[in-house]
């Protein structure tokens, strides 16, 4: 334990059965760069932050420094290990897991009816996208076809969720870069969207509204007026942000040319969503592979730019809000009548009024919400475009009422890996802009 890196990480002694320890040792043999260790590139002398300072005339020495997990601009509990040469980042390594709550394990213990309550807490900034992808996966295993109103309502709600998520990004991104009034403005418009979602679903976040088999309830009377009002407010807000930031010289100084990434890098690292689109590659699952949602019937554009820097990712998210507004307006105009859930007695609980008059309906309701419904054996992978990129659900059923395996491919989990090439060679202060522009949601990364 003489080298400074292991003193920094302070590994605790291992405990467990001999086989387990043998397994762990095998792990260590295979590792040359541990999760908690960062191997310096220019190893002449490594100096720990707070440790003895290097001789100033030694140009080769680098410094290892931890950013996070409690740093305010790391959006939750992201930790990044940085190797610095004075102010310049030589390498960056994201360390995750601080918010791991075992949601995939929990998902195996919950019935399919309860499942959407669990997944909605993963990407907590756009919960409806999680519920949607889970519900679509379950419905795919059940071979259920959704009525048109369900598909349109889902599309509208997911777009509203995207607006809320991107408005949150505008707020925090502005604050991270010193435009502190943005946090007030972004929150103001996001709150309007959340207020509408609260009227529809009953909750501001973690709605549990999109469920396998349809939705929890129908839209309230007069929802058209409410949602159009929200659209107007959001459009005004976006115009305001655009006026404030897009031509602001300080903003441009902080963002243009910072954190560049190429299309090849983004594709190789599995980055999706605004990061991939900012490199000049117009890939959006809403256009190319819209699973069971009527995106082909509405008119909207895929926003993409070609510089791959922080400014482009900001612009893409800003204008995507307007595209979502466009989709929501079309949903208001064209929302088909009909049922808000599929009428399949296997998955749909009886209407509330029937429970008061029918014993069978009561039993049916009780069984659905205690045992849940059984899903035939099989496996499926369903992906939709969440505000952060491709969110996928890999679901394996063994024929019982609970999933055998529930895996969510979180876009932030993959997008985080693209942060390292963006940060290398930039200044530490730009690092904050880069973290913010990747827009990671740690609940989804750690699950």
């Amino acid at each position, binding site marked *: 334990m003489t080298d400074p890196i292991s003193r920094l990480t302070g590994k605790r002694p291992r405990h467990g059965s001999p086989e387990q320890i043998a397994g762990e040792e095998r792990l260590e043999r295979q590792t040359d760069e541990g999760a908690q260790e960062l191997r310096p590139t220019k190893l002449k002398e490594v100096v720990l932050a707070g440790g003895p300072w290097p001789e100033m005339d030694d140009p080769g020495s680098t410094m290892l420094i931890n950013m996070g997990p409690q740093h305010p601009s790391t959006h939750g509990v992201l930790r990044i290990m940085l190797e610095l040469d004075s102010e310049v980042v030589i390498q960056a390594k994201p360390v995750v897991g601080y918010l791991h709550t075992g949601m995939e394990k929990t998902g195996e213990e919950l019935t399919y009816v309860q499942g959407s309550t669990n997944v909605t807490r993963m990407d907590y900034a756009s919960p409806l996208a999680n519920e949607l992808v889970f519900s679509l996966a379950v419905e795919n295993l059940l071979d259920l076809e959704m009525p048109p109103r369900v598909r349109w309502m889902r599309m509208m709600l997911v777009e509203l969720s995207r607006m809320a998520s991107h408005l949150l990004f505008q707020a925090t991104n502005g604050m991270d870069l010193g435009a502190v009034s943005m946090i007030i403005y972004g929150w103001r418009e996001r709150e309007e969207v959340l207020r509408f979602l609260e009227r529809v679903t009953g909750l501001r976040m973690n709605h549990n509204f999109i469920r396998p088999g349809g939705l929890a309830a129908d839209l309230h009377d007069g929802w058209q007026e409410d949602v159009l009002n929200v659209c107007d407010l959001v459009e005004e807000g976006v115009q305001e942000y655009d006026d404030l930031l897009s031509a602001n010289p300080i903003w441009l100084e902080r963002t243009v040319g910072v954190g560049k990434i190429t299309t090849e890098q983004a594709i190789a690292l599995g980055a999706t969503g605004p990061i991939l689109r900012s490199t000049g590659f117009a890939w959006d699952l809403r256009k190319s592979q819209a699973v069971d949602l009527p995106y082909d019937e509405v008119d909207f554009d895929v926003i993409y730019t070609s510089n791959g820097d922080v400014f482009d990712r900001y612009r893409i998210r800003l204008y995507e809000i307007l595209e979502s507004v466009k989709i929501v307006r079309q949903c208001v105009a064209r929302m088909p009548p009909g049922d808000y859930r599929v009428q399949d007695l296997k998955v749909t609980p009886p209407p509330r009024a029937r429970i008061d008059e029918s014993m069978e309906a009561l039993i049916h309701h009780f069984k659905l919400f205690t045992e849940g419904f059984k899903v035939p054996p099989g496996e499926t992978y369903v992906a939709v475009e969440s505000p952060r990129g491709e969110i996928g659900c890999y679901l394996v059923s063994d*024929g019982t009422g609970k999933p055998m395996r529930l895996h969510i491919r979180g876009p932030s989990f993959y997008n985080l890996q693209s942060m390292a090439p963006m940060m290398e060679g930039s200044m530490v202060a730009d690092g904050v802009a880069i973290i913010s522009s990747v827009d990671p949601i740690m609940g989804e990364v750690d699950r």
Partner: protein
Amino acid sequence: MADETPREDGHEDDVEAVPAPPSDEVAAAVLERFPGTVFHESHGQPVVYVDRAVWAELARFLRDEQQFTMCMDITAVDHLLDAGRVDLPGVEYERFEVVGNFLSHPRNRRIRTICQVPVGELSVASVSDTYPGVNFAEREVWDLYGIAFDGHPDLTRILMPDDWVGHPLRKDDPPGRIPVTFKEDNPNR
């Protein structure tokens, strides 16, 4: 196996017949390149069950010859106590499965590859040199299932603490419970 059961239609020639070529062109190419691969269409999605030995070679084949530009996801499934497992002829099932989901941007299609991992030898070749983006995903599988990826540059725990013992997503790793304490259980009260 199914071949030994007498067939009612009486076509004895068909007993050893080659199964119909898969409806998916990529899967057909995979079957031609890697004999022994089994094709399955799962709810409209093409799935190929490949041998564990060709796992990394298959990834290179998909990227270099079939234009599969992105590996969306690598994950694993523990089939311990799985009563309802889909039984395909030609697949020798093991307890663990490693699953890869691939996406081709130019061809706008997906394919899923699955390989079986026996309990005695929990390792698969890493595809992180072909698709660097699976780095985190393979670490996650190692962390939660204990399946090692040979050739991975940095195979360490990612979600669990470094000194954690066990692999929590395995079916024989029970979820923890906090015991319920009743008032009368506490003698000091």
